[in-house]
Each structure stands twice: as C-alpha cells, then as structure tokens.
C-alpha cells in the first residue's frame, strides 16, 4: 500500500518536472514553474524515504546533509561569470551519482543477493556506468578548461583520433561482452576505468570556443545515464527525467553546432585549433593593412549622438567583468535619446545563453536582448555597432571568404552598421586564431585596452559631452 503512494509521488513529480520545463518557454512564467519543479523534487525524495525496502536511514541522512551543504554555496555564491564551469561541475556531480548507484547495484547483485543479472538489466547498468563515468571525467576536464586549471587550448597529438576511436570501440566491446556475460566482474570494472580515461581523452582536444557544444553534449550524457539508472531500477520518474534532460542536451548541442556551422564529428574529432594552421598567406596580407585606433573622446562623441547603438558582447565581456559598466553606458545613451539594443550570438561566451544571463544580472531588460536572426536586419539602421570582447562571431570572413575555417558560420552582421567600434585588449587574433578583416575596414575603429576601463572611460566622457 505504502509503495503505491510512492508511485503516486513519482507521478506527481514527473508532471511537475514537465511543467517546469514547459514554463521555461516564457521568461515571465519560468520562475514559478521551476519552483513547482522543486516542489516535485521534494515530493519524490520524501516519497522515496517511505519505501518499504529502506531499512537504514543513517547513510541517507549523512548523504543528504553533506549534499545540501555542498549544494548551497554552488547555488548561491557562484558568480554569473563562472556559470559555465559551475554547470560543468553539476554535470560531474549528476553523472557521478548515476555511476555510483550503478556500481552499487552491480556489486549488490553479485555479492549480496547472489542472483544472476539478466541481460536486459545488465545492459541498463552498463550504459549507466559507461555514460556516467565518461561524463564524470569529461565534465571535470571541461570545468578545468573553463576555470583555467587545464589549458584552454586544444591539446592534440599524432594519432589522437585513432587512440580515441580505439578506446571507444574497446569500451563498446566490453559492454557487449557484459550483456552476454553479466557475471564478468573484472570486465565491468575495467569498463568503468576505461570510460573515465575516455572522458579525459575526448575533451582534451576541444578548445575553449567549442565549450558550448561540449557542455550541451555532457548535459545530454548525464541525462542518458540517469535514464539508464531508471531502466536498471525500474523507476519511471528517472526514465522520464533522464529522457527530458537527454533531449534537452542533445537539442542544445545541435543548435550550438548549427550556430558554428559545424557537425558533431567536426567538433569532437576536428580539433579546431590544429586545423587552422595559417590560412595561407593571411599573415602576409594583413601585415600590409593597418587598423585605425580611436580615442575615447571620439568614440564617446559617436555614441552620444547615435540614434541606434547595437552592442555585440562576447566572451571578452565576461572575462573583463564589465557588465555593470555596459549597463551604465546603455542607460546613458538612452537618457540622451538614443536607442540601445544588444545582439547575442548563440555561441557568444562559453555556454548556451551565457551573455543573456550576464546582461540580465545587471538589470538590462530582456526585451533589449536580441537573438541573431532578429537583430541582423537592424544593423544597417544602426549608427554605431559596439563590439565588446567578441571576435569570431562578428568576423565577415564567415560570409565572404570560402577558404576561411569559419566560412559558412552564421555571424552578427556588425559590418553593416554605419560605424563599428571594437573594444579589444590587443591585436591578438581571436580564439580560433583567425584574422578578422572587420578590424581593417574603413568604418571600423579600434579602442584598445581593458574592456572594463574602456567602457568606464566612455561613460565618464559621454557625461561630459
């Protein structure tokens, strides 16, 4: 009887989760919807504690308390600029939980219950620990690259793809062997170890600019391992949630790949950094071109008298942490009668939607944040396009240089504006290492220096105009 109520609790939780995800289709309903989803989680947890097979609460309580103590700072204290690594870390914890449950289940079946594991159950357990362990180390590497304790550059070596594909094939073979022969304990643990190695090897060659795809993909894997846990435990709420999460991660990775005009395979095995070894002659060609730098006074003058300013932020804005200054700048321009819009490229920053969160944090109303398709027709109307710490996503080479590695990638058409001001630290090429011809165009002016200082100076100067 009791267990029936647990099932009801799971059903309620599943419905609330689906409603929570649905609420995210509109910013106004999102918060309430996700609060309901949190209630669903509470119901599911309380319901589980009532299961008749639970006989010992000590370990559960320790886990719940430690987890809550770990989770609170990860929820409340992490700054918005660190969101990508925070998300990577939560992929790590999510998949770690699934892997540990899988290992515990396997061990219990083998040594406590002494019952043969059916092949179907073994397949579920196998997928659970395979996806789980791979995501644990993969997320750790992604987190490291984003936080900076692992090099952000793509690490490549000769025969890398062969090594990775061999490791992957070996893991799949072990999995198949286990399904046929579930009692092969050594193979099970060897597969866990192999999957963790594979996680590291897979993320190693992926550079910082491709992180949005990797984070989405890891999101998907976390979901799949949760769904596999559900299959192994015959628990529908886990299957439903895992499927939702898996679908979400998959869809986001597809969107991110589209926004870079690249395929999955290219992101995973392409090792962008290595591929780009000097588009022939580009160096010599650009050496002849000169960039025009602009003084703060002149830039401020342009912005102060512009009717429409479109700001295109990139990862550089997150690094310089100048969102507050940018907000001040946009308010100042508006008070002088100009209009300010923000152009957000889908892969600006290090994760999907990164820039939106940073700008929302400083109280910029979300109606001013425009996606690429919506803003591109507006650039021709803009008096000034202000590029803050973005590079590849505004590089016209993507449109008109078939030889360029980023050719075909959809970009923000900032070069259609009447004038372009680029805030940039120095003339180093962007992450992908590709020259940006936007910087050499007649209507482009470079304002060199730290973005935070530059924007602050612009604000001070416009106040004096």
């Amino acid at each position, binding site marked *: 009887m009791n267990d029936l109520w647990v099932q009801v609790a799971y059903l309620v939780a599943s419905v609330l989760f689906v409603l*929570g*995800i*649905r609420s*995210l*289709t509109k*910013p106004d309903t*999102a*918060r309430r919807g*996700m609060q309901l*989803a*949190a209630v669903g*989680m509470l119901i599911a*947890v309380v319901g589980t504690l009532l299961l008749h097979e*639970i006989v010992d*609460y000590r*370990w*559960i309580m320790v*886990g*719940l308390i430690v*987890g*809550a103590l*770990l989770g*609170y*700072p990860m*929820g*409340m204290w992490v700054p*918005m600029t660190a*969101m990508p690594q925070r*998300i990577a870390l939560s*992929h790590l*914890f999510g998949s*770690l*939980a*699934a892997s*540990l*449950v899988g290992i*515990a289940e396997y061990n*219990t079946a083998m040594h406590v*219950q002494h019952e043969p594991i059916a092949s179907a159950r073994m397949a579920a357990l196998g997928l659970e620990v395979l996806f789980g362990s791979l995501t644990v180390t993969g997320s750790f590497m992604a987190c490291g690259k984003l936080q900076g304790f692992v090099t952000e550059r793509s690490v490549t070596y000769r025969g890398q793809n062969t090594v990775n594909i061999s490791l992957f094939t070996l893991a799949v073979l072990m999995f198949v062997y286990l399904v046929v022969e579930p009692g092969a304990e050594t193979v099970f643990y060897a597969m866990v170890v192999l999957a963790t190695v594979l996680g590291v090897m897979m993320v190693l060659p992926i550079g910082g600019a491709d992180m949005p795809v990797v984070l989405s993909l890891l*999101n998907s894997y976390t979901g799949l391992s*949760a769904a596999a846990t559900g*299959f192994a435990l015959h628990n529908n*709420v*886990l299957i439903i949630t*895992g499927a*939702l999460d*898996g*679908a*979400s*991660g*998959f*869809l*986001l990775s597809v969107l991110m790949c589209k926004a870079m005009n690249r395929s999955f395979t290219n992101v995973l095995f392409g090792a962008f950094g290595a591929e780009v070894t000097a588009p022939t002659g580009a160096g010599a060609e650009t050496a002849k071109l000169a960039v025009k730098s602009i003084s703060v006074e002149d830039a401020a003058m342009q912005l102060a008298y512009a009717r429409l300013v479109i700001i295109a932020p990139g990862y550089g804005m997150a690094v310089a942490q100048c969102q507050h200054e940018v907000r001040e700048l946009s308010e100042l321009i508006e008070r002088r009668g100009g209009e300010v819009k923000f152009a957000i490229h*889908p892969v600006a920053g290090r994760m*999907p939607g990164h820039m*939106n*969160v940073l700008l*929302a944090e400083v109280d910029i*109303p979300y*109606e001013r944040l425009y996606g690429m398709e919506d803003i591109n027709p507006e650039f021709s109307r803009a008096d000034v396009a202000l590029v803050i710490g973005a590079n590849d996503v505004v590089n016209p080479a993507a449109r008109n240089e078939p030889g360029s590695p980023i050719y075909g990638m959809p970009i923000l058409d900032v070069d259609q504006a009447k004038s372009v001001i680029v805030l940039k630290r120095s003339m180093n090429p962007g992450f992908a290492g590709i020259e940006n011809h936007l910087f050499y165009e007649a209507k482009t002016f470079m304002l060199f220096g730290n973005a935070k200082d530059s924007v602050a100076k612009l604000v001070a100067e416009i106040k004096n105009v």
Partner: protein
Amino acid sequence: MPTSLSGFGEFYVFVLAAFLGYQLITHVPPLLHTPLMAATNAIDAITVVGAIAAAGSGHGLLASILGCAAVASAMSNVVGGFLITDRMLSMFRRGEAASSNGKQERSK
C-alpha cells in the same frame, strides 16, 4: 505482460518522454538557454531517488558507502541546481520592472 517484455513498457516511457522533451525544449528561447541547462541539471538530480535506495536498503557496507556518496552528489545538484536556476530566472525582468529596479540601485 510477460516478464521478458516488461522492459518494453519502460522503453515506451523513455521514447515518449524524449519526444515530449524535444518538443518542449524547441520552444525555449535562446534567451533562457543557460537557465534551461541549470534547470535540467537540477531535475536530473532525481537520481537521488536511486541513490537513497542504494544507501538505505541494508545491502552491506560497500553499497551503503557508495550510496551515501551518490546521495551527496545528487543532493548537491538538487539544492544547488534549483537555487541557481531560481537566482538566474529572478534576474530576467521586463523593461519597466528592470528600469525601476535600476533607479533604486542608483538612488542608494
């Protein structure tokens, strides 16, 4: 349903849920993609349910320890995930609300 096919019902659930998820998430605007990722992470921490069962079923010390670690990992995502999603979503404001908030901040 014969026991050999009982897993098939679960497969139905998986496929339909994945399809539903795909349909819903197609309609999430890029504006909210970061909160979406945090949110799916938070609800994905439902693995805590499996972890609780592993930690508390009295299947020996190893299972309890592994289960306990799994409960802690998943629980950190439950608490951290919902908190950070709520924190982010509270920042997305419409024009009027946002500008009045901005004014308050300036007048401080």
